[in-house]
């Protein structure tokens, strides 16, 4: 491996434009019928970006409504539709696919030295299923929407709601197959397509995270499919399955739903943790402390995530003994996440740290994910959860992880790999400014919500007690800052496509197979199949006498 260089965002001399995966062909058909995993990653990037802004628009609207205690901006049913839309779009069409389908698709084969995924055409089909499901769900929203909340709880969703539950369920069902097929692709590619010398324990931790995520895709998503499918069948065919009047149990739906939806939150966070490992390693120029612990923690999180779903159901009517067991297991699952946080922190310690934009996002992730995770511990304790369930405390908790964690990691990853993906460098000043603005806006939005929830403000309500208004206004103000802050990267990243300086092969001086190929890479990634003889993150130790293991 070459010696580690200092980051050189601007190359010393102009780079001659080689034939790469972008200029390989320019037709629309070559993009829409591509089987190149890199192009498919970009197709996903376009899709998730559109959905992100639509889901964000819904949030803008209901945060505006929440500036006042009365219902003055929208009617009740519209408000219900808005937060439902926000949840469905953000979860299924942004958070679940964002890192795995954009960065995972682009980088996984390259990081293991492969020419493509195991099933390139299946990969393309995944994208089409994602877009069809997403666009169909959007269409359903436009013609009337759904007001059940993204959780579709029965019997409201199956019997009483007058909105497009079945159609939305079908949209989510279709998109679920996108996830499952992506999971199949990731698992098989990781098992079978590693280049010579790339053993499991030489792989970047990004791969371990995505492999663990893929396990959840395959094992969990189908149960959501059947849960939503049974509700759709119940509505569409008038069959009673969760109908209490026939002796059906609405809680059974919740069991099926949360069996997926809890692991789903780890689908959303595990890839982010994978990105985090890469960012921390690259910008502290250090091996990740306790590599194998982090790798096994990813697998542990994936497995344990399937054992804790009842913590969403403590007050639903579930058995109290079940609740206790779920509570204990939910506390245990914090351990592997905690191990990772400690290991990242130790990596920073004694690293040669630089604070480029991706690192700022990584630092943000470190702190905000920790807050989100710790509040998760509070919620795992039944005694606290019964008081704050369905309040803004929950909302704040999961936004700290989803937005403070996943979105920050996503943005960090986009910035870090932007030069590799596009061959251009973005403007570092704007990057840093935006990262800080996102951090400030985010905390102003969601920190007050912890207090609101603790004080008792329920979620999914658009009228509230006047005493809550100050905190709500703070939250809405933060949301507007956050919304604007997200527009900055969108703008300067697009701008850099045409005007940004051309990037070299390894502008960050990082270690990894992706940094040994041109920026942007050629269609087949590697001119010759690499043969790996080095360990992951083989940065020269800053103090050779120190040996951490």
């Amino acid at each position, binding site marked *: 491996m070459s010696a580690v260089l200092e980051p050189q965002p601007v190359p010393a001399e102009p780079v001659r434009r080689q034939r790469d995966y972008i200029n390989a062909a320019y037709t629309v058909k070559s993009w829409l019928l591509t089987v190149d995993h890199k192009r498919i990653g970009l197709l996903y990037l376009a899709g998730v970006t559109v959905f992100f802004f639509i889901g964000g628009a819904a949030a803008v609207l209901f945060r505006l409504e929440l500036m006042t205690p009365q219902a003055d901006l929208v009617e009740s049913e519209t408000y219900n539709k808005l937060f439902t839309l926000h949840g469905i779009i953000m979860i299924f069409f942004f958070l679940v696919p964002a890192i795995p389908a954009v960065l995972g698709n682009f980088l996984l084969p390259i990081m293991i030295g492969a020419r493509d995924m195991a099933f390139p055409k299946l990969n393309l089909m995944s994208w089409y299923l994602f877009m069809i499901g997403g666009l169909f769900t959007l269409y*359903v929203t436009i013609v009337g929407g759904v007001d059940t909340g993204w959780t579709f709880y029965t019997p409201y969703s199956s*019997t009483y709601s007058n909105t497009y539950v*079945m159609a939305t369920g079908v949209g989510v069902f279709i998109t679920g197959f996108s996830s499952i097929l992506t999971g199949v692709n990731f698992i098989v590619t990781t098992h079978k397509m590693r280049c010579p010398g790339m053993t499991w324990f030489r792989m970047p931790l990004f791969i371990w995270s995505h492999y663990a995520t893929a396990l959840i895709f395959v094992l969990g998503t189908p149960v959501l499919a059947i849960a939503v499918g049974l509700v759709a069948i119940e509505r569409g065919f008038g069959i009673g399955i969760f109908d209490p009047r026939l002796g059906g149990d609405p809680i059974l739906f919740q069991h099926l739903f949360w069996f997926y939806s809890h692991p789903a939150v780890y689908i959303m966070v595990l890839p982010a943790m994978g990105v985090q490992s890469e960012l921390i390693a690259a910008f502290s120029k250090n091996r990740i402390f306790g590599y194998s612990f982090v790798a096994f923690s990813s697998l542990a999180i994936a497995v344990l995530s399937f054992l804790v779903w009842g913590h969403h159901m403590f007050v639903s009517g579930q058995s109290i003994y079940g609740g206790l067991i779920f509570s204990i297991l939910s506390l245990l699952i914090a351990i592997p996440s905690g191990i990772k946080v400690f290991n990242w922190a130790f990596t920073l310690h004694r690293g040669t740290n630089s604070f480029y934009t991706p690192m700022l996002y990584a630092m943000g992730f470190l702190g905000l994910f920790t807050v989100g995770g710790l509040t998760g511990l509070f919620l795992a304790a039944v005694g606290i959860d019964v008081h704050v369930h369905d309040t803004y405390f929950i909302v704040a908790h999961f936004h700290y992880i989803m937005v403070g964690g996943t979105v920050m990691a996503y943005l960090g990853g986009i910035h870090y790999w932007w030069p590799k993906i596009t061959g251009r460098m973005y403007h570092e000043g704007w990057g840093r400014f935006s990262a800080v603005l996102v951090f400030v806006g985010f905390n102003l939005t969601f920190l007050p919500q912890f207090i609101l929830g603790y004080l008792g403000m329920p979620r999914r309500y658009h009228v509230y007690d006047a005493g809550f208004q100050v905190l709500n206004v703070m939250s809405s103000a933060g949301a507007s800052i956050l919304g604007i802050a997200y527009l900055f990267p969108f703008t300067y990243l697009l701008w850099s496509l045409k005007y940004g300086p051309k990037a070299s092969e390894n502008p960050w001086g990082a270690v990894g197979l992706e940094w040994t190929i041109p920026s942007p890479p050629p269609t087949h990634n590697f001119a010759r199949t690499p043969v790996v003889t080095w360990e992951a993150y083989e940065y020269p130790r800053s103090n050779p006498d120190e040996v951490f293991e």
Partner: protein
Amino acid sequence: MSETAQPTLKIYFLVYAALMIGLAATVGAAYLPHGPWSLPAALAIAFAKAALVVMFFMHVLYSPRLTWIAVFAGLVWLSILMAITFADYMSRDWIPTSQPKTGLALPPGAESVEPPRAAAEMGTVDAPDAAD
């Protein structure tokens, strides 16, 4: 790693015969007075038939270890789903409360419940959204 071993023709037909015997057994068992053993017996025979199909028709007996791991993962995860869900239902009435001790039950007065047609006529399912 790629397997070339296959079951022989004779094995395929033996497995088929065993499946037929299993079919006869499971139907026959249903007619025998069995009390609470109905479900365990049916499941045992079904698992035996399934094992034959998986091992021989699907070649798992001749497949690499990774295939076995995939099969076991599926079984384990299905068990997790069923076991923990059942644990909820079975333990719901362990706690002494003033509520009636039942797992699931019809709501009081449900004996006179009409089929879903009644619900439609109440106008709750018959919503203005024709798309559903």
